[in-house]
């Protein structure tokens, strides 16, 4: 396999992701303020580079809270929700898919029916339905985000396992007397895990967008915690007078989703040449 040079767009995306993670981890140190500190005198100050006070690099919101620190904390929450949520969906869906293919029978029927049901309901509608009945908590929200796309993993992994079972190498290992656990964990899983990895990179930006959308609607991450979507929805009423409250978090979400999907496309080409997009 010849090594292709990394395209410049992917390099830029990787840089942005690294920058985002750094801000999420250490951004709080850039400002003397806490993300919940309010200051009635310093309400709606423009960013420092536009003539606002020196101490607020990116300005303040309607409660006089430092936008930079809020963005850093919001970025951290968004990052945690995106990664943990996507992982839950990936692991859950893949396990169910492999289980369906391995056990057949009733288990498969039930899992396939569950896939059909999930496929007939957009995850945001499911999330809203559950949030209507249960008190919103961060754990519940994380679990709901985790449901994103599990049915896609299940469907993909079921298909892959079914076809792997018919391959010569599996038949040979089975004939050698390997236990089912050994066959699935040591032989089939390493051969099909790429499919789940590719799907993971497709799902990650979708999870970011879902989390920010729900938080934007006021139904996701709840105060006192904050997330990029929540900051945007707070700034929405002051679009004309305090644009920085919407533009900075909005641009961050956009560039994050953009970078992840560009890197994802690139990874997909490397991991799975059969899926290579014609370019």
């Amino acid at each position, binding site marked *: 396999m010849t090594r292709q040079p990394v395209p410049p767009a992917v390099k830029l995306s990787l840089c942005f992701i690294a920058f985002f993670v750094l801000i999420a981890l250490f951004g709080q140190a850039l400002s003397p303020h806490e993300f919940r500190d309010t200051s009635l005198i310093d309400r709606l100050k423009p960013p420092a580079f536009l003539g606002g006070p020196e101490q607020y690099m990116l300005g303040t919101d309607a409660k006089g809270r430092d936008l930079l620190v809020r963005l850093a904390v919001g970025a951290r929450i968004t990052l945690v929700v995106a990664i943990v949520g996507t992982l839950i969906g990936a692991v859950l869906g893949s396990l169910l898919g492999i289980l369906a293919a391995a056990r057949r029978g009733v288990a498969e029927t039930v899992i396939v029916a569950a896939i059909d049901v999930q496929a007939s309901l*957009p*995850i945001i*509608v499911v999330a*809203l339905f559950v949030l209507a009945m249960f008190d919103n908590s961060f754990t519940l929200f994380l679990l709901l985000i985790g449901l994103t796309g599990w049915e896609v993993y299940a469907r993909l992994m079921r298909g892959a396992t079914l076809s792997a079972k018919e391959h010569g190498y599996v038949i040979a290992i089975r004939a050698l007397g390997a236990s089912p656990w050994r066959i699935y964990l040591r032989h089939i899983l390493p051969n099909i895990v790429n499919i789940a990895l590719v799907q993971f990179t497709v799902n990650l930006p979708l999870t970011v967008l879902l989390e920010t959308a729900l938080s934007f609607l006021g*139904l996701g991450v709840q105060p006192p915690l904050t997330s990029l979507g929540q900051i945007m929805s707070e700034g929405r009423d002051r679009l004309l007078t305090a644009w920085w409250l919407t533009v900075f978090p909005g641009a961050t979400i956009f560039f994050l989703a953009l970078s992840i999907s560009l890197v994802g496309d690139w990874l997909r080409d490397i991991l799975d040449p059969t899926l290579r997009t014609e370019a």
Partner: protein
Amino acid sequence: MTAFIAFKIFRAVVTLLVTVTLVFVFIRFSGDPAAALAPPDAPQEIIDQYAKAMGLDKPLWQQYAGYLGGIFRGDFGYSIHTGKSALTLFAERLPATLRLGGTALLIAILLGIPLGSVAALNRRTLLDRCVMAFSVFAFAMPNFLFGLIMILTGALVFNTYLGGSSGAGSWAGVLPPALTLGLAAMGSFARFARSSLLETINKPFMRAAEARGVPFLRRLVRHAAPNAAIPLVTLIGLSLGGLIAGSVVTEQVFAWPGVGQLLVRSVATRDIATVQFIVLAVAFTMVLANLMVDLLYLVIDPRIRAK
């Protein structure tokens, strides 16, 4: 073929039945439905009265049978806030959502597919790269951000407010939210139209047609397009879920008086009957759409019919 259709319909019915049952189970086990439906400050007698009226004193299977019966009779319960039936509330909002979603889908199809086709025919040119960049942009752009940019542009450049129920009446008013809603679908249509057409024009039958001297335009319209369009039908069917999900957010941003706005409002006020009805309606729409895509395949792809 009859067996194929019968199987598809059976599967759709089972999916709907499971969804309906899950909704029942969720509502029944999320806590006391009577307390949830009654206003938060209702005294215990009122809650008991609600429970009796809802038949919560009966055994579970009877409740389930009653719930299913209610659905078949079109009785979906009443909104606690307006006192109207969930069905009426939904029906009031549906036209606005249909106009928004329909326009969005139309925009996505009419712009996305030609864009992708043009990119495929001009492969590896600047135009192709621009279309691909656009499709990535459309995928990554959160619709609430794009909507806010639209509103901001409208306010600063054209001095008008692009949201609100005033816009829901006119045809020009539907364009900004519809463009916001259709953007993601447009990007994915462009991307898939491009790859589908690319795959088709490299098939042997296309070369054979070229060798026979069939003119370019005829090759494109009569030979390539019908074949390339087949996977797009599935994609358009699948995009419905994204459109429904997107309309929830878009309607909120543009204050569009549709079902999505009703859903968000009902969730915020815990109006379970309305939320339940909307969830069932969404599931019904999606299952029906998937079924129609499957059946449409029989019409447009003779190869499946032959099996």
